[in-house]
């Protein structure tokens, strides 16, 4: 029986059209719908499934972010997580927070709570860093099984099928370990309203960066955030010969 730690991040909802701030310092987050990072939902689902199969004794969710992150934690609790930990960091500090800081926090909490497995989403859909799982494994010096598309418990370890370029790779690892969830790992369940209400009774422990002893001094500076280039309008060519010559001109055919 093991204790599982899952990470949940509050991000701008996947269906929202992202707008860049006029001063190019970031994206507009005020008054925009937020929800749990889709890959974290998959991670939560996997941890809850482990609990249901009696492979895990307890599932703990950890979220680092502004006060509203509690709502995201609540969603995780509604999906079946036992308790939550919220490390509150807001404003300017949160904007500059990087996976290096997050991974240290995860490592600290995993040790304090005596977790044997950390399940994270492979990346968040806002900054797309794809670093937290790998860095957490490095900080703890634990084995990592990232981009998991199937996880199976074996005697004293895990068998993980990983998504790699052009196929799948099966690896075995000992516990404790860090796993990051890929898109095809499972289909997350829906957090129903009664479950969200019930989740309000589950405990959420609130901590600060100082409580976990992590220095959150920014290591990078954001120079400018810009919209991706707008797609150029296409043109209609009169016949095949012009098409071919135009394609040759652009270097698409030889």
């Amino acid at each position, binding site marked *: 029986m093991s204790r599982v730690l899952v990470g949940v991040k509050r991000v701008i909802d*996947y*269906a929202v059209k992202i707008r860049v701030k006029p001063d190019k310092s970031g994206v507009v987050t005020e008054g925009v719908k937020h929800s749990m990072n889709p*890959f974290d939902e998959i991670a939560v689902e996997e941890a809850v499934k482990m609990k249901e199969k009696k492979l895990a004794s307890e599932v703990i969710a950890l979220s680092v972010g502004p006060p509203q992150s509690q709502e995201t934690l609540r969603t995780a609790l509604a999906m079946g997580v036992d308790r939550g930990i919220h490390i509150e960091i807001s404003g300017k500090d949160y904007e500059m927070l990087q996976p290096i800081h997050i991974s240290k926090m995860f490592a600290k909490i995993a040790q304090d709570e005596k977790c044997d497995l950390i399940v994270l989403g492979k990346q968040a*859909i806002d900054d797309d860093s794809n670093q937290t799982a790998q860095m957490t494994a490095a900080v703890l010096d634990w084995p990592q099984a990232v981009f998991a598309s199937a996880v199976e418990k074996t005697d004293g370890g895990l068998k993980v099928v990983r998504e790699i370029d052009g196929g799948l790779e099966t690896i075995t690892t000992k516990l404790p370990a860090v796993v990051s969830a890929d*898109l095809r790992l499972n*289909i*997350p369940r*829906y957090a129903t309203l*009664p479950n969200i209400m019930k989740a309000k009774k589950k405990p959420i422990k609130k901590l600060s960066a100082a409580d976990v002893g992590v220095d959150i001094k920014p290591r990078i500076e954001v120079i400018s955030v810009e919209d991706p280039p707008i797609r150029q309008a296409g043109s209609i060519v009169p016949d095949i010969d012009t098409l071919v010559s135009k394609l040759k001109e652009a270097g698409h055919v030889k």
Partner: protein
Amino acid sequence: MSQRSRVIALYKHIQYLLREYPTDDVRKMQIACKKAFAKNKDETDPKKIEEMIARGEYVSKEIETLYALKKYRAMKRRYYDD
């Protein structure tokens, strides 16, 4: 749970689900749902009510699946080439 409270719970759940239905007019969907339930409000045969609950549960599962698939496809389009 009594049949009555199961129907109410199902109604609430579907209304809650419809809040994020991908349409221009969520209100219209919610009214349509209300009408569908109201149409059978005088039904007294427990067996028939049971059938209707089963149908309602099927619909709610379908909506949940639709949302999951929509999100999955959006992620797949954004992050995977194949």
